[in-house]
């Protein structure tokens, strides 16, 4: 069969145009700016600068005036784009210094190392060693420390039903000898005054 060479060239050009339309132009056109918006105002998920500027209100937990429980205090917390990111932001705020007039139950120097969620609605919060090594002891103080962390997550993020605290990436028996940390801990509303 003898094909004229101009038909061959025309076919190749048409195919190239088709590939360009399907792979490059069409997606751009479909994802183009919506009416009334400008590209500079778009907030894309995971954009750090935008996320840092956005905040939510969350209940954080500090020691009650009587000293035998916790009180919930509304505070602004940096927005997290995913549940895990939001959970981490909340715990970072809970571990930070207490606001004026409040007393933190968290020992100095404790920081979040990692946080991940499981399909069983449990959060695993990995915190640095000072949470344990700097703990002043006593079952009451230990309870306040643990439930400040557990309640901060379970009260603000209802999808999280229990929290397991890890120290430097490892499962531990207790922080200071009293409260069993070998299993995920559930929310404790009895301790809230």
């Amino acid at each position, binding site marked *: 069969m003898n094909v004229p060479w101009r038909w061959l060239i025309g076919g190749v050009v048409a195919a190239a145009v088709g590939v360009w339309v399907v792979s490059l132009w069409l997606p751009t056109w479909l994802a183009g700016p919506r009416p009334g918006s400008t590209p500079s105002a778009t907030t894309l998920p995971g954009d750090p600068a935008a996320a840092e500027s956005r905040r939510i209100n969350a209940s954080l937990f500090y020691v009650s005036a009587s000293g035998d429980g916790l009180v919930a205090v509304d505070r602004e917390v940096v927005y997290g784009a995913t549940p895990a990111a939001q959970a981490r932001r909340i715990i970072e705020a809970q571990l930070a210094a207490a606001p004026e007039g409040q007393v933190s139950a968290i020992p100095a120097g404790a920081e979040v190392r990692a946080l991940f969620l499981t399909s069983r609605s449990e959060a695993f919060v990995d915190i640095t060693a000072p949470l344990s090594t700097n703990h002043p002891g006593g079952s009451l103080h230990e309870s306040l420390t643990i439930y400040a962390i557990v309640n901060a997550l379970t009260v603000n993020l209802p999808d999280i039903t229990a929290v397991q605290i890890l120290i430097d990436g490892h499962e531990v028996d207790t922080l200071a000898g*009293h409260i069993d940390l070998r299993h995920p801990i559930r929310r404790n509303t009895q301790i809230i005054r």
Partner: protein
Amino acid sequence: LQKYDGGLALRLVIVGLLALVASSTGARTQEPASYRVVTTDGSRPLPVHASTGTTDIVTLDAAARLFGLVVRDDPRAGGVVVSAGNERVVLTAGQATVSSSGRLVSLSAPVTRSGSTWLVPVDFLRALNRGIDVRRGSKLIVVAPAVVPRVTPRFERTATGGRLVITLEPGATTRVTREGSIVSVRVQANALDVEPLSGAPADLVASMRADDASLLFELGPSVTNVRGDDGRDQTRVTIDLIGAPQPAAPPTAQAPPVQLDRPPGIRTIAIDAGHGGEDAGARSPNGAIEKDVTMIVAMRVKALLEARLGVRVVLTREGDANITPDRRAALANNSKADLFISLHANGSPVAALRGAQVLSLAGQDYAGVEGAAPRTDAPAVPVPVVGGGTRTIDAVPWQLAQLTHVNASATLAGITAQRLAEAGVVMHPRPVDVGPLRILVGANMPAILIELGVLTNADDATALAQASYLSVLADAIVTAISDVRLGIPGSGGGGQP
């Protein structure tokens, strides 16, 4: 008839005279018995000068001769200084506390002076810090490194006869041998501290006696064969007594099932002095440390329990050692303790908070944990026995043993908090509470954790540094235990979350 009456009268006179002699002999035997001091070199007696009912009093001279103590009067302080090696103990007449190398140690009775003789409660010897273990119930004083296991023999009825289960605390190497009708359990120890055997039928076990470091059982006439398990588990020896077939009972006379459990009532109590070693626990601004406070109260509670209730008390730590929670629970479980009392002192970020608190395990905190679901049947696990075959034992998940006792533990917590309050102890705003307490969850008996006070509070810290206040705490705890000595009311043994 007259002759017969005369003979009867003569016999009555003889019986009366014999009774008189026996009663006078009995009066002599009521004098306080001596303690047996066991060392690695043998044993020697320490005479008891007097017994007050709550403690035994010995003369300081006798103790000094036995233990090589140097005693020196201190007229300025109105007391006496006892030196033993590097340890220096200061005793003051009328005081129930002594200063041992700067540390305050509580005694079960005050030190007194009768003329030139100093009289001290026998538990004074513990203050010497020379590894001296005073066991009032068995009138034994064990001087480390001598090993004197507490031996608890128990009889169980089996389908083929019976079984002797002998528990040793601490464990030791044992060897079971039989010579004729005598089965002996030789223990690698310096002596034995043996509890009596009860409930064994005479046709299987005619008698039991201890001979130095051996336990000797005289077999009854029904025993045809014996199988002994010696030494694989150093804390437990079992001896199966195979009996002759019993005649079948008449079909109409169906006997009630034999109750094989131990009789009700508290016989052994585990006292846990919280923290220890490098784990000091909470601290007070004035320097008091939780691990020291708990140890002093534990010793005091032990002395009072042994004196008042005559029960066996095991301490989860004897010195300043860091013991894991599982080891503490294991000691209580292996000792078949009826109660587990863990002593602690609290800390709070708010200095104003004070007061004692009694805690028990919150069963609901373990609801989602594997193995915590309520069971309707006791899981039985077959284990091999010496001589072939197997037997079944009930399996309790070690890490969740407390779950079946949470109701009883909560009741005990309430009783203890009430007794503390009645004794004048300032209580926490929530005197009773529950939590997922690591130290309690492995205890297979009613168990509570007592926070004796809040060390971060100045008033509580001052009180907890006073021997008199620690005695009040110990006394209230012992009173609470005395309340439940025949069983914890309304517990029913249940309590699954």
